């Protein structure tokens, strides 16, 4: 990444920092510098947006997910959408068996291809065209408000407003985990993610719970300084106890809070906050990890980072699409894009090697990658893993 000789590296770093602070930003729309070191993630060169005019049943889009068979699913304020081969969206609503029209989250069972759908009134399974609703009244689901869902082996995990429910797909038995039978600070669970043999539960106001289903053990990760607004000691743990979302990929745990963003890997915790890092906003509400890169949904757009380099997608006051690229030791690259995210309030993201999808409070956006997409080169073994 760094092109300076080792001996000059401290000087170059200082110069870089000075440049970063003192160098006037190029005006929006100015051409990007010619020689930039390559980024570990693709940049989006334009957005295709889908609003009510394009068939969205509501402006608010909460979640977006592409299943392993390549079909795109979109969770909205008013139903679940399936993108057909011809690009048109087919709506699935309560009249089709969906437990509620307001879809909050989506997850796929990789072994069956079944789609699990968290809604404001229960958990719904879409399997081979059959729709089955699980609610707190017809099943063991702890609560109807399902913020997060994931599938780990034979178990479906649902993060609800009254604890976490685990449905064993072989036996049909439910298990409940909340503040009465775990270390959970409170039962309001916001997200959940399977991580090999572990399950991470994001608890509103309760940090992160690490659960080992085999051992039945629970471990809590809380913000050590317990301060809501300030991260007194950086990188000492989760940046905040209010976990608005979390995700895990390949040994790396990512946490969204309304007061910054955190990562935990084999080296320990790393935290980012707005202003002291390129993080677009402290108000982070969704993260989608892909090949070691976090795609973060915030209230002001989307941040993308591998922990070193950053790319932020936001909107100018006039509604133009703005990209900021932060490379270590290099000036910030700012450009106006031909098109912008449908809205800066990003609630859900799905990224694969070909494209990025964003669920926003004003429609669905597809991020079209620039030509120099690093994912188009053959993936390394680590990337494949």
């Amino acid at each position, binding site marked *: 990444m760094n092109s300076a000789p080792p001996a000059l590296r401290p000087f170059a770093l200082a110069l870089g920092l000075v440049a970063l602070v003192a160098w006037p930003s190029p005006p929006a729309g100015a051409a990007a510098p010619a020689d930039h070191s390559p980024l570990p993630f693709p940049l989006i060169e334009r957005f295709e947006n889908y609003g009510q005019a394009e068939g969205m049943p509501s402006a608010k889009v909460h979640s977006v997910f592409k299943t392993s068979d390549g079909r795109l699913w979109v969770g909205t304020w008013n139903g679940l959408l399936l993108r057909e081969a011809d690009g048109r969206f087919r709506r699935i609503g309560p009249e089709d068996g969906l437990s509620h029209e307001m879809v909050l989250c989506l997850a796929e069972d990789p*072994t*069956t*291809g*079944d789609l699990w759908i968290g809604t404001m009134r229960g958990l719904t399974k879409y*399997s*081979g*065209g*059959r729709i089955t609703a699980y609610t*707190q*009244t*017809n*099943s*063991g689901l*702890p*609560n109807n408000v399902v913020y997060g869902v994931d599938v780990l082996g*034979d178990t479906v995990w649902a993060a609800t407003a*009254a604890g976490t429910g685990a449905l064993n*797909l*072989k036996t049909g*038995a*439910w*298990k*409940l985990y909340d503040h*009465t*039978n775990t270390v959970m600070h409170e039962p309001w669970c916001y997200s959940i993610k399977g991580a090999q043999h572990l399950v991470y539960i994001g608890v509103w106001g309760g940090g992160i719970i690490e659960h080992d289903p085999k051992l039945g053990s629970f471990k809590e990760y809380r913000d050590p300084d317990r301060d809501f607004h300030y991260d007194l000691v950086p990188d000492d743990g989760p940046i905040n106890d209010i976990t608005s979302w979390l995700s895990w990929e390949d040994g790396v745990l990512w946490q969204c809070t309304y007061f910054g963003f955190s990562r935990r890997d084999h080296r320990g915790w790393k935290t980012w906050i707005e202003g002291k890092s390129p993080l677009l906003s402290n108000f982070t509400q969704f993260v989608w990890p892909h090949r070691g890169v976090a795609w973060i949904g915030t209230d002001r757009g989307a941040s993308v980072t591998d922990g070193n380099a950053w790319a932020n997608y936001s909107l100018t006051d006039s509604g133009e699409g703005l990209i900021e690229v932060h490379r270590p030791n290099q000036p910030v690259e700012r450009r106006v894009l031909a098109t912008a995210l449908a809205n800066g309030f990003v609630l859900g993201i799905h990224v694969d090697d070909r494209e990025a999808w964003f669920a926003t409070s004003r429609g669905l956006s597809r991020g079209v990658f620039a030509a120099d997409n690093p994912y188009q080169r053959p993936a390394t073994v680590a990337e494949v893993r």
Partner: protein
Amino acid sequence: MKRRGYIALMLAALMGSAGLGVGGYFWSVGHVRRWTGRPELGYVGCNHCHFVSLEKMPWSHPRPRHAAPAGLAVTPDGTRLFVALDDRDELAEADTATRKITRRVAVAGGPFGLALDPTGERLYVVCRDADRVAVLDTRDLRELDSIEVGTAPVSIAFGRTPAGDRLVVANSMSDNVSVLSVAPLEELARREAGREPYAVALAADASVAYVANRLAIPADYLSRPDAELTLIDPAGGRILARHPLISAHLSEGVAVVPHRGWALTPLIQVRNLVPITQVVQGWVMSTGLAVSQGRDAVTQVPLDEANAFFADPAAIVVDPAGQRAYVVSAGSDAVSVVDLDKLGHWLAHADAATRQDAIHDLSLAAEYVVARIPTGRNPRHAALSPDGRALFVSERLEDRVLVVDTASLQPLGHIVLGDGGAADPIRRGERVFTKAAHTFQNQFSCRSCHPDGHVDGLSYDFDGDGIGDNLLDNRTLQGVGKTEPFKWIGKNPSLEVQCGPRFARVLMRTDPIPPADLKDLTAYLESLPPPRWERKQQLELTPAQERGRRLFFATVTPAGQPIPRDRQCHTCHRPPLFTNRLLSSVGTKAPTDATDQFDAPHLLGIAHSAPYLHDGRAKTLEELWTIYQTNDLHGVSSYWSKHMLNDLIEYLKTL
């Protein structure tokens, strides 16, 4: 003096016995009121609570075992037929030329379904009662290997996929499908199917496994029940599609049609939402065939005729040329021969609306059903010789296999497995139970609504007590012996009354079942045990189930509040049958119900008999207390947490 003393003694004895009588009466009244919480005694007797034990139940007694043929498999060279004899824990081998039994071996656990590998060297046997698949060497019929699968496997199919040889097993009681690798014999996946998966067939290239499910998937109250044809990738168990079979159930067979890409599933088109004001014209149910063409197109066509019905379609086989399908009718003792060229021609020329409505057109079957071959009692399974020239049909309640020449459609003879069991009243009763000839135009049998004596998961509207009123959920007959009175309102004091003239009047619309047959039928019904009861006796409860058990038998709330006796679970659902056989009001009277007093059903196997309550309004056990509980009348549940409810459900599943 002596006489006076004698008189005094007599008077004292008289007064003493009178006192005892009066005291005894008041004590017994108090006792019953104390233990049932009932102010009135009604017809409560000692035997409602006492002198009941599972060992005394008729279904717990040993019964004669019969050589009833189940699954059939013909070797690739067509010389040998294997017959599963589940009731005897045996497998029989017959010479197809001489039609004689050549060997019998013991296979433990109720061998029911069979599959051969393409070489004919390995025979795979699903054992329904032992939840396992056994692998046999067809040279010496030695058991080589065995693997546990889901609950009550009944059907198995072999397929050669790019990922390796696979076995797909339908587990009827756990509502799922096991996908096994053959070498090594391992369960790769267990996938949810529809309700009661009962038959499996693989496409010729093993790219798809078609799974027919016997019951409709529980639906919302008074909504249409649909069954399912589940399409699974045999290589890894991924769900490919789930084809809804609209308003259908009792699919016990499935076959793939070579060269056409079809899957054929026999079914009953049920009409339980329509009040039973008549039977004529298939008003209650009729039989049909679901033709699945590709991913989405499923057309149901009738197998019945305008004035003749062929109840309880079970197995289906298709000849190697894909020109004929043979569908056995277990209730009407016939094989319907379907000309697939004619059916294909009709399908090609019918518009979408006509195809959608076809199943209701009773004059249509004459277009493609070219023959009906009579069989012995209760044909259930079928197989074709590899060249398609010989059709083998298991006449289950005759202990025989019928062999038919498919060129002439004439019988060639029988492979005799047993004596038919005519001396056994239970076997005779099963013949009555499965016989459609007791209903108008052979439209259905007892088994049509009670497969294996269990439930079909549907509610019906009998018109005898008013059209649209008093809907009734179909109750299980498994474990029903000695749980009188019968019917939800406890109207029938005995099974003879339940199944006698009243039944002929409201449902069969023919002559009543003759008294001798009715007696045999009762013997059969009383011989039906609750599902898996012996095994459940030995179950060790998990912590959640144990917590649920304590809740079931709770007499006080955790806060120390006493629970009224008449609203403790175990008062009305008293062990060991988990019923006190009395009527109770649990706050479930609907505006269309004539009474709020309903019979307390036994709970043995309750987890398998959804939906619940007298009219089937509760789709799951949870809904009994989350949606349909009124003022704590159906047990005091207002103090339960979600944890407690889930624990109780887990306990109920163990009964």
